[in-house]
């Protein structure tokens, strides 16, 4: 942006003539008095870009034209700086020189930080959960993120955000739900200019709330101006449409946004297989909108189409780099569990020295259809749909009516396994699949189940041997992640394991 400050007063022409006399420029009635420069952002990663602008002041009919130069990297004629690749922090000085009077110039500094191997690593903690939870979180992987009002430095750190490979998109609990988010974020509107809201159905509950926009930073990675969802309680406005709650087995009681203890975290960051949470199924390619995105007017909220750009993105796929997937690295957890576990959420697959596939096996999964995102798990000679989900807190598979499956606990713990011989050592095999069936060679996986009654008797929060019944599918939840490199590759993004979506472990 170049602004001309017209300073017209009596001596302008005299100064202008003096300038003409000394500088020999082309306009005898004008002079440039100063050039100031500003750049945004003022800190960029190695090879990043910053847009700079000059304000030229002068008298008379002076020229606002400037010539750009930078002490390092390159800069375009419009002031777009491309920083150099650096291995240590460097201060890049950008200069704008008046073309009318080359002795008048302004400068600004842009700090260029190296993209060190740690800039794509966000620490994961498996612990008892956020303060005020009211119970001890079990097998939940938490990270801290930074959320900002788009384009501003009005930001807030949010801790205890659940890492979920089973969904895509960032969703946050505001203080009205007992969460941490107190920033006021701008509302996203639909194509008619009306506010968008979303109903997201999980297996064991649903969340509801407006779609807003934010800048999101995690580790050294940034997602700019992306749609995110607020998770609001049933008492807030807009109210929950019945077509939303009816998609959940808990009905209206299943709103997990009612309190911090209902949701169990300050938010959830979906870093799963897909670039958007809903994808083509919510666009107008389909006959009518499913009850996922809602258009809210004074008469209420009704399902509406949402373009891919309007939908919540997987934040990772919007990063400038390290955007083809994630690696979750958690240390092994011994039988009996651990009180806390520290690990890493590493962005990118094969993009840096710290996220190579190594010896991991790639398990391709369908990107659409009834088995979208599923692998094939074989147990006792029978094939089941399987999936890898850090947002599930155990190994959920079959039930004791199937030969070789542990006994279900009694009393208050009937949703967990309590094998009589503990640990109960089991075996299954996994392979990838396409829309037409299993692909690749089955790879054997050994796992153990311990009695939940024993595991829960103390205050441990991380368990590799926690499991529970489920009659039809294999859910490889967070228990399965400990001691493994677990890769989740995003659809349509290329990586050393091929084009996503796939899991690799």
């Amino acid at each position, binding site marked *: 942006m170049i602004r001309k400050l017209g300073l017209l007063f009596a001596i302008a022409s005299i100064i202008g003539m003096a300038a003409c006399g000394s500088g020999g420029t082309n306009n005898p009635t004008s002079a440039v008095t100063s050039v100031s420069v500003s750049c945004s952002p003022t800190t960029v990663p190695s090879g990043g870009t910053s847009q700079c602008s000059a304000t030229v002041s002068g008298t008379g009919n002076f020229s606002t034209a400037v010539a750009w130069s930078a002490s390092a990297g390159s800069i375009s004629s419009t002031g777009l700086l491309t920083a150099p690749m650096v291995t240590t922090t460097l201060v890049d000085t950008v200069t704008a020189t008046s073309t009318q009077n080359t002795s008048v110039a302004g400068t600004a500094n842009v700090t260029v930080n190296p993209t060190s191997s740690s800039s794509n690593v966000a620490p994961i903690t498996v612990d008892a959960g956020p303060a005020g939870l009211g119970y001890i979180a079990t097998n939940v992987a938490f990270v801290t993120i930074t959320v900002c009002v788009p384009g501003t430095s009005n930001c807030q750190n949010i801790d205890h955000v659940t890492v979920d490979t089973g969904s895509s998109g960032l969703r946050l609990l505001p203080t009205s739900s007992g969460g941490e988010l107190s920033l006021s974020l701008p509302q996203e509107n639909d194509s008619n200019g009306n506010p968008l809201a979303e109903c997201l*159905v999980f297996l064991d509950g649903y969340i509801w709330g407006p779609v807003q926009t934010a800048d999101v930073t995690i580790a050294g990675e940034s997602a700019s101006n992306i749609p995110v969802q607020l998770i609001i309680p049933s008492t807030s406005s807009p109210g929950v449409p019945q077509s939303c709650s009816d998609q959940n087995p808990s009905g209206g009681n299943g709103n997990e946004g009612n309190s911090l203890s209902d949701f169990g975290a300050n938010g959830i960051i979906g870093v799963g297989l897909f670039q958007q*949470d809903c994808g083509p199924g919510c666009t107008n390619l389909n006959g009518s909108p499913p009850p996922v995105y809602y258009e809210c007017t004074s008469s209420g909220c009704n399902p509406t189409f949402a373009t891919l750009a309007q939908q919540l993105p997987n934040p990772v796929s919007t990063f400038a780099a390290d955007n083809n997937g994630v690696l979750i690295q958690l240390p092994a957890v011994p039988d009996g569990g651990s009180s806390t576990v520290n690990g890493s959420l590493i962005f990118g697959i094969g993009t840096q020295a710290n996220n190579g596939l190594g010896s991991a096996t790639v398990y391709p999964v369908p990107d659409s259809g009834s088995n979208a995102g599923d692998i094939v798990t074989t147990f006792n000679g029978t094939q089941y749909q399987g999936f890898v989900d850090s947002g599930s807190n155990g190994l959920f598979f079959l039930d004791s009516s199937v030969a070789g499956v542990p006994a279900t606990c009694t009393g208050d713990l009937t949703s967990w396994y309590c094998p009589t011989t503990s640990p109960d050592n089991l075996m299954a095999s996994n392979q990838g699949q396409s829309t037409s069936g299993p692909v690749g060679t089955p790879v054997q996986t050994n796992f153990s189940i311990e009695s939940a009654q024993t595991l829960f008797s103390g205050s441990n929060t991380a368990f590799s041997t926690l499991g529970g019944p489920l009659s039809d599918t294999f859910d490889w939840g967070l228990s399965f992640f400990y001691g493994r490199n677990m890769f989740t590759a995003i659809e349509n993004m290329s990586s050393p394991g091929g084009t996503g979506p796939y899991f690799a472990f």
Partner: protein
Amino acid sequence: MRLLALRRCTLRIQAAVALTAMLLPLSCWATLGDNAASVMNNQAQMKGTLISVDHQRYVLHEITTPSGAKIREYVSPAGAVFAVAWEGQFAPNFEQLLGPYYQQVQQAMAQQKAAQQSGDQQPTRRRRGPVYVATSGIVFEQSGHLRSFHGQAYIPQLVPQGVKASDIR
């Protein structure tokens, strides 16, 4: 197994029901606990392909919608819909699919949650992930993840002799 009827019927949707059928892609199939006639009644509300297979102890009707969602309905020799199963990108509308049994599922879910919260196990632990509730009146399960839901529900008292729970999937 005898192929009872292999009908690939792309049904013409009446305007009045079209909106409902499309809004609730999994919702317009027969309701759990209904009689077999409801299969035919509700057939007209779905736009998809139907395959019916006689498994001797029950008849399985499977409908596939244009979006790829599937609803499977299990009808006993006595003519009752004793089980339903579903898979697709979205969860079904349970109020319509489960009918009066939806309330039973909600109650069972609420009881399970209450038991976890008031249990003698200290501290309280919560299962996060697939849903599995089993009472004498209803067994309900749903698993999967965003973009892929699988589930089934059945009424134990109506399950014909010789049919195993693992047959319903």
